[in-house]
């Protein structure tokens, strides 16, 4: 459920249509979006889950699955 919600945030933020696949392996860098979009998507993910993701964590995320794992660990701890 964490990943699905994150995928929804990304899809709606980037106004992607349904034909664009988003999987846990999808990386924000790989989507060729600019760094300001990445910042804004992270903010929206923080809002969606009411958490704060420390800046230093951002460098550790390789893909959306990593973000979902991190969110899960915070929400379920």
């Amino acid at each position, binding site marked *: 459920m964490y990943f699905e919600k994150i995928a929804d945030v990304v899809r709606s933020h*980037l106004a992607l249509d349904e034909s664009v696949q988003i999987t846990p392996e999808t990386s924000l860098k790989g989507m060729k979006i600019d760094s300001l979009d990445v910042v*804004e998507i992270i903010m929206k993910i923080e*809002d969606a889950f009411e958490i*704060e993701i420390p800046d230093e964590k951002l460098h550790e995320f390789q893909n959306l699955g990593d973000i979902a794992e991190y969110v899960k660990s915070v929400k379920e701890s």
Partner: protein
Amino acid sequence: MQELSGKRRVVVTGTGCVTPFGAGRRTLFDSLVAGKSAVSLISSFDTSDFKTKIAAEIKNFDVNSYFPKSETRKMDRFTQLAAVAAKDALEDSKINLEKLDRSRFGVVLGTGFGGISTTLEQHEVLLERGSRRVSPFCVPMMIPNMAAGTLSILFGAKGVNETVSTACASSSHAIAAAALLIQSGKADVIICGGSEAPVNPLILAAFSSMNALSRRNDEPEKASRPFDRNRDGFVLGEGSGILILESFEHAVHRNADIYAEIAGTGSSADAYHITSPDPDAKGAESAMRAALCEAEVSEIDLILAHGTGTLANDVTETRAIKAVFGGNACEIPVVSIKSMIGHALGAAAAISAVAAVSAINSGLVPPTINLETPDPECDLDYVPNFTRKAEIKCVLTNSFGFGGQNSSLVFKAVN
């Protein structure tokens, strides 16, 4: 074709706009000659706490039918308006962007407030949700030069790229600056004009505090009444006007339709007061004289006035026109299109320029609407309420900004 002085001639080969009547140059001019008013009660926010509750808003503006949402969501409304107006103008010019020397293709725009909506929205985010929630797009959306920057990206204009801010004269100064850049050989083609999206609570409250705005809330369509004795201030508007300027040689070389020539530009300062016009109208007079002198024309067939509908502007502008044209002043039609579309501040002059070019090419003079009771101090021919047919070879446009910054332009028909 170069003049003896060595200056290159500058011509208009495309016009475009978004105004409270909707997108497109034809929509604008058709509505102007129909004498319509675009003023209504403000719908974009709650005005119950405001003395003025009316504006000329662009309703149902759907930028996403012109550009992808992934791009438009990073644009403030003033940039979105400029983008759509520029697209309209480029289509009108039929210019083939693939064949252009991009390094000689530029953008010069004017704006008074730039991305003021973004500034306000993000300031609210800061106060309500804290510093960590301020958008990373805040700066690129709020800075006033971003409309010009965005047009360069959208259309691949890699030459001169500048932004002028002189309040309500911004886009007149921008057109003059663009003309000078082409005249002096620093560019061949320039997208120029201006854009403004100021209909928000802060700007409405701020102009209202100055007693500058009409409060005729019960009759919105009658509220903007330049030169009428019962005028009580201007009506806030919004929009964007864009001209495609080219050197005459460049336009001829690509076999373009040439709609008009920019024959003269004049600029001056009142050096008098931060907001009030100099009652002697010397600044306005000198801007007009400079534009006419450069244009070397003997007769003006139409003046598109600054004509805001404030008590002070309309009297001093009338005085300035009389000082410049003397006994002939009463013979020249003087029109304020702000009577219909309100005052789009930094975009107003560029929208006037689009109307000037349409007047030259249609032989129609749009009216000043709501002129019902003459003001003894405003005694020129303001073309009250009804459109006229006339041969228009030469149009003078006036724009005066807070700060006492004045700009006049002369547009001439090209045979």
